């Protein structure tokens, strides 16, 4: 009985039904955000240390995140936050009326990094809608392809995007008191990465010239090279189709992939060692760092990597094939697993637009899912995308992002949700390389140039900025070992002559067919909800990880994940006057989510005309 807030109950056989006796079961409270704004205005007028700190977008590309906060620079506290997606994405509108077979190619363009997962989600949605089961080798190679995408994505984020925040250059500017301490703190993992002390690591995290920065650039190439053997090209693969992959795979392909994958064995040990040393240093140096970006571990994930003996693409069996995935789907509330069933993950989803630049739609076409679970009028299968540009107002509408919730709660998404849920739920199938203990994931990394080693990611006591990035670092060996499991399976299938890569299909020209694709991006949770009517796409809805993470307030006033995490962030940066304030603690927190919009942020301290520009960069798929 996983829902506490939605009006859904379950009978003794586990069948969901709508609670009886409710006049308007999906009614929700709508709070006036103006009350909070008036209070803040009064505070700012009375107290000169309380200032508006705006991270306002100046960007040369489609897609931007901006952030508004009110900060008390004396008490070093954040008082109010608003997360803003400042551009309209519109893929939902573009896809309407098109042949469903176009969806994988078009939706792939929603992102310049994770095109492969968008294409895959699209393929999965069509597979479910019209009943296509890919052959085993198609499933296994899809798993390898997407593991490789993560192996591109995670080092990129850790060293190119988030990494500079922990570099010697930035720390010297924002917290110079840590530099001496870092030089006197021995690196615990010297055996795997070779650095004597933490300052040496921080120096090599310096952007553009640090060895770790440059090494990550070269590792992205290794992953990309392996990826194109299967996907044809990166970031928009040409071979991902409903029913499998449109590419032939031979032992020679597998060998080419293996010769790249093996490089991630040693790199996994190095990356986890580096980030353990850096994050432990920060957390030990000042216990207040544990409060940066802290929020309850409320997370959602779709799970990824299908078992070829379990995945049949049907909605009917989605709980079974979902639970058989190498990464377990589900929902965590306060760090506890409340469901691992894809049907419940799907059934609890809603999207609200009260604080977004969209018109509310009127329809409620699908009152239940195909097996009878009640669906809200705000569920993606019922949602319509009706853009309504308007004035930005903290009291009313301020984002192009919608506000997705699960069981009426804002949910966080990330690669880390994948490892957290899988470790906690202990439902993933047996693996030669992975072991889930309920409180950790043990990852047995085979030897390459370094000796074999068991890495262990432990569920942290506090869910904060540092732990998000630490978990992401462990997702590198996790993804590499899932790829290895699948590589061994692929080898076996080819040796047995099971070389078929895809199942042919035809789009039915009559009737209504619905499906959803659920496959995490490098940044976590991703769903594509699809309705085909009379052979064309009637509705298409995409919920990306950054749709969840960058969400504005719920209609009832609960902050979105970025908003909540920044709200809880203490200001630990050292500055003499407001003009010197750089906002590093806030920026580290926002970046720890791996935000999925390119964004240049301005920090403006009121009454000072002081503007600082900072980058919060990744891709643009979070923007609707």
């Amino acid at each position, binding site marked *: 009985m996983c829902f506490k807030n939605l009006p859904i109950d379950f009978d003794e056989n586990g069948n969901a039904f709508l609670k009886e006796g409710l006049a308007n079961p999906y009614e929700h409270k709508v709070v006036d955000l103006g009350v909070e704004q008036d209070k803040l205005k009064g505070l700012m007028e009375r107290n000169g240390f309380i200032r508006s700190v705006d991270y306002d977008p100046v960007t*040369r*590309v489609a897609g931007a995140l901006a952030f508004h906060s009110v900060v008390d620079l004396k008490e070093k506290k954040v008082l109010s936050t608003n997360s803003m997606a400042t551009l309209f994405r519109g893929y939902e509108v573009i896809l309407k009326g098109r042949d469903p077979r176009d969806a994988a190619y078009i939706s792939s363009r929603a*992102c*310049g*990094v994770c*095109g492969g997962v968008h294409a895959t989600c699209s393929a999965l949605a069509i597979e479910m809608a019209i009943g296509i089961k890919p052959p085993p080798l198609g499933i296994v190679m899809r798993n390898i392809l997407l593991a490789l995408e993560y192996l591109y994505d995670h080092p*990129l984020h850790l060293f*190119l*995007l988030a990494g*500079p925040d922990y570099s010697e250059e930035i720390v010297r500017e924002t917290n110079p008191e840590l530099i001496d301490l870092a030089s006197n703190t021995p690196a615990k993992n010297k055996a795997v990465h070779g650095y004597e002390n933490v300052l040496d690591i921080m120096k090599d995290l310096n*952007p*553009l010239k640090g060895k770790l920065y440059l090494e990550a*650039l*070269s590792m*992205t*190439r290794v992953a*990309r090279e392996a990826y194109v053997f299967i996907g044809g*090209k*990166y*970031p928009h693969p040409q071979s991902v189709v409903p029913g499998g992959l449109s590419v032939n795979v031979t032992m020679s392909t597998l060998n080419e992939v293996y010769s790249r994958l093996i490089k991630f064995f040693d790199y996994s040990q190095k990356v986890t060692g580096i980030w353990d040393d850096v994050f432990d240093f920060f957390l030990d140096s000042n216990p207040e760092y544990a409060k940066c970006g802290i929020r309850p571990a409320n997370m959602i994930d779709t799970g990824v990597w299908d078992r070829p003996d379990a995945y049949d693409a049907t909605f009917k069996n989605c709980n079974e094939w979902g639970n058989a995935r190498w990464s377990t789907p589900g929902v965590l509330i306060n760090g506890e697993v409340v469901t691992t069933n894809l049907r419940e993950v799907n059934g609890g989803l809603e999207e609200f637009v009260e604080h977004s630049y969209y018109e509310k739609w009127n329809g409620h076409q699908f009152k239940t899912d195909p097996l009878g679970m009640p669906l809200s009028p705000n569920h993606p299968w019922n949602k319509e995308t009706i853009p309504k540009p308007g004035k930005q107002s903290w009291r009313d509408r301020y984002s192009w992002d919608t506000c997705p919730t699960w069981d009426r709660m804002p949910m966080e998404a990330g690669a880390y949700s994948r490892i957290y849920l899988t470790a906690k739920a202990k439902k993933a199938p047996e693996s030669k390389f992975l072991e889930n203990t309920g409180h950790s994931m043990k990852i047995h990394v085979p030897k390459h140039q370094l000796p074999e080693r068991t890495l262990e990611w432990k569920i942290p006591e506090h869910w904060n900025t540092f732990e998000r990035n630490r978990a992401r670092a462990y997702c590198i060996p996790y993804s590499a070992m899932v790829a290895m499991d699948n590589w061994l399976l692929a080898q076996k299938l080819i040796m047995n002559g099971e070389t078929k890569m895809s199942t042919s299909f035809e789009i039915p020209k009559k009737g209504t067919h619905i499906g959803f694709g659920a496959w995490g991006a490098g940044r976590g949770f991703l769903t594509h909800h699809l309705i085909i009517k009379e052979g064309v796409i009637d509705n298409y809805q995409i919920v990306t990880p950054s749709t969840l993470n960058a969400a504005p307030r719920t209609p009832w006033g609960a902050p979105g994940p970025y908003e909540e995490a920044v709200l809880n962030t203490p200001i630990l940066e050292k500055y003499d006057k407001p003009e010197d304030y750089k906002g590093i603690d806030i920026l580290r927190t926002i970046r720890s989510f791996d935000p999925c919009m*390119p964004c*240049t942020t301005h920090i403006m301290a009121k009454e000072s005309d002081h503007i600082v*520009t900072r*980058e919060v*960069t*990744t*891709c*643009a798929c979070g923007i609707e």
Partner: protein
Amino acid sequence: MGLNKKVLIGTVGYQLLGNHSVGPNLLPQLQAINWPEGVVVDEMNWGPIAVIQYLESLETPFERVVFLVAIERAHRKIGEINLYRWMGGLPDDKQIQACVGDAATGVISVENLLVIGEHFKVWPKEVYLIDVEPGMEIAGEQFTKNVTAQVPKILELTRHIALNGIRGSMKILELRGDTLFD
């Protein structure tokens, strides 16, 4: 016709953006030209980092690079063609880092490509941009009449620069990394 230089002709730009897609739209026509040995014609939209890594991996580097692009600039008529020569120079480290951030996350921009290439020292002495004024961004597969009328000239100029570099009294503008983002 023989050519004693190894030359890269690269097209850069988003697809389906009307005049802004001059590079990708004219790629097939450029590839159809009977080029001498040593000339490579390819799209260069697959990310500046990947492009730089490709260039670094070549045993015999290119000696001349010609990019065909369409960048909206003030005070130009739609369809106007300018020839630029990359003169090197770099913006400050923060701007380079911003370019790398954009590049690593899928932004297609010849300016990012030039700056990152300069940072990693991959450019030969001769790097040219054939830059067509596209006007405002409008989604679509077709060029406007002004640009369509210029297609033969664009192809001929690309061919000429690729094979001969700068000859005679051609008007050439300079592009520098240290002033690119001013």
